[in-house]
């Protein structure tokens, strides 16, 4: 608790790591440690994992077409990835929560294919990719972990490109977020929708007013509760039924 009676930051942050310990959400901590590599050992190998930030709302973590040199893991805050076409139309590719990796799609052809933008105050870990490759060559578990991450990243994309109703899309979107928060040890049924509704709409390929209209109806039906940006899932079973065609896996 802070001295003035405030409790610690209301938003999830994976900042329990330090120079000696991995963050609990670290994508690599769980494979490095069994291999006998704690953070000190990684430092000794000049494989220092750099903590970078804070980035503020609207700041770029990397830009489209920049030379690829590192992967990033979100430690705190939310990161949006997006592409902008020649005519200036934006397509939101995804939202990334603490513990999640970004930049995996940049390994080939060695430049970032999208922008990564902070949606609030963001801290990230920077993994130098040459260093990580070296480590992967030495430790099979690290290599396997990297393959897992890449595979999961491919599966995630374009989930919403199919022919689904607005209700199905939004139910799936909310459950997907809830599941990802839960997987990283955060509260799964109540979270903050940090991303603007225009970004949600763009990501789900819906109009902004449709997003609000459906959420309002969900709220009237007692499925969710919305207060500002705070969202609570009240009837998960009903949402799951609605989203089953999208969240087949």
């Amino acid at each position, binding site marked *: *608790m802070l001295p*003035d*009676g*405030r*409790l610690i930051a*209301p938003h999830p942050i994976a900042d329990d790591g330090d120079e000696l310990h991995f963050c609990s959400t670290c994508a690599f901590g769980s494979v490095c440690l069994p291999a006998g590599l704690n953070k000190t050992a990684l430092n000794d190998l000049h494989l220092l994992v750099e903590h970078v930030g804070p980035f503020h709302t609207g700041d770029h973590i990397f830009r489209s077409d920049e030379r690829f040199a590192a992967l990033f893991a979100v430690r705190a805050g939310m990161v949006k990835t997006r592409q902008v076409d020649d005519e200036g139309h934006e397509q939101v590719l995804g939202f990334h929560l603490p513990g999640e990796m970004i930049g995996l799609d940049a390994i080939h052809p060695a430049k970032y294919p999208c922008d990564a933008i902070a949606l609030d105050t963001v801290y990230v870990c920077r993994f130098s990719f040459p260093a990580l490759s070296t480590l992967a060559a030495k430790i099979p578990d690290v290599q396997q972990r990297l393959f897992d991450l890449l595979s999961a990243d491919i599966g995630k994309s374009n989930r919403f490109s199919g022919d689904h109703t607005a209700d199905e899309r939004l139910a799936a979107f909310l459950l997907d977020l809830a599941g990802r928060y839960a997987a990283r040890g955060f509260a799964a049924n109540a979270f903050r*929708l940090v991303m*603007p*509704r*225009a970004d*949600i709409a763009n990501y789900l390929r819906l109009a*902004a*007013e449709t*997003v*609000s*209209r459906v*959420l*309002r109806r969900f*709220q009237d039906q007692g499925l969710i509760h*919305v207060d*500002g*940006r705070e*969202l609570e899932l009240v009837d998960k079973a009903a949402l799951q039924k609605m989203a089953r065609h999208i969240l087949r896996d």
Partner: protein
Amino acid sequence: MQTHAAFDPGLIARYDVNGPRYTSYPAAPQFHAGFDEAQLRAVAHASNEDPIPRPLSVYVHVPFCLSPCFYCGCTRIITRDRNKSPIYLQRLHREIELTAPLFDRDRSVQQLHFGGGTPNFLDRAQMAELLETLAQHFSFSRDAQREFGIELDPRFCDAEYVRALAPLGFNRVSVGIQDFDPDVQAAVNRIQSVAQTRAVLDAARESGFRSTSVDLIYGLPKQSLAGFARTLDEVIALAPDRVAAYAYAHLPQRFKAQRQIHAADLPDAATRLRLLGLTVEKLTEAGYRYIGMDHFARADDELARAQEAGTLQRNFQGYSTHGGCDLIGLGMSAISHIGTSYSQNAHDLPRYYAALDAGRLPVMRGLALSEDDVIRADAIAQLMCQGRLDIAAFEARHGLDFQLYFDAGLRHLRKLARDDLVEITPQALHVTARGRYLLRHIAMCFDAHLAREAAPAVRYSRVL
């Protein structure tokens, strides 16, 4: 509600200080020029980005008055020159064109309020044109529950004018009375008969207005308990749905018109308190509920129902059932409340006109609330609207330890508890029947800005 509690002179002396009315927290004197057009545009943009953006409430300020009421502390311009309105309206239309596009079209206007000044300074054609422009640029709610209200001065409008407002969408009317006592009316330069007032209220009811409201002021020069009792009887006979009884704020340094009022004619603090007590007593006997501060409503009125349901809100017009709207203020000196910000337009016509002529929004000052401001505003709103603050719910909402966070404020509040204004338990704060007369004092315990201020006396009116 008990009838008015006894206040001994010692207690009155202790509580007869200056303080804000908390139509906003932080209060308007905290607004600063650093909050400019760019900031206003940014908060408006951000307000569109919630998953379910808040609906809109629009306030339109008509600054002109035909005759000066000496008590008035509103921002207004006294003129007999009706040619002033087309010039003003031209800028107002421009402001609507510039402001409306900042808000996404799916955010409907659930509340519209015309205040002043005197909104009926505008003639029927001007009013119709203004409503048309508003409807064109904003999405008016089609919900039957929408509240479109207008303040009317019965001395300058007839039944025909009132009847013409209903088809424009207005469904609530608020009429200024202040006091029917002829001595008081002479002392404040506002001569208005009961018949004039009744004509406006009757016309409103006949043409389908859903709600009527009247304003009274206690603490005016020459006011007496006997005279005000007669006024209250006449008001009860007029049967409005709501009554607002405001405390007169005598600040002649700030409001030039008030210099016409002789301080010697003003009732003292004890009499003011008795006037409020009398008002509460008479109106509650007649079936009105004391909502708090200066507002009364029939028990079946939405305002009373909102208080019971815990959804009552406080805003610049007093209390409101429409919480959770973003308020857009249009016109000279109008205040907006968008997201967690307040902002105010230029206070005089030259600067209001100059900004709009240059294609700029006429915002001149404002405030982006800090996290602490938001927390304190919530505490003040709970106490002023519900008369109660549930500590566990408050702690959960803001992620804090109530006792620790409000350590200093609670020390002040315990003094008020000893005077039986508030009851403090480990679970909740309750405003007592007696404390409802002194809500401003209770709120002041939670005001962090007041504590920092050098001389609140200059800026705020007497609390009693």
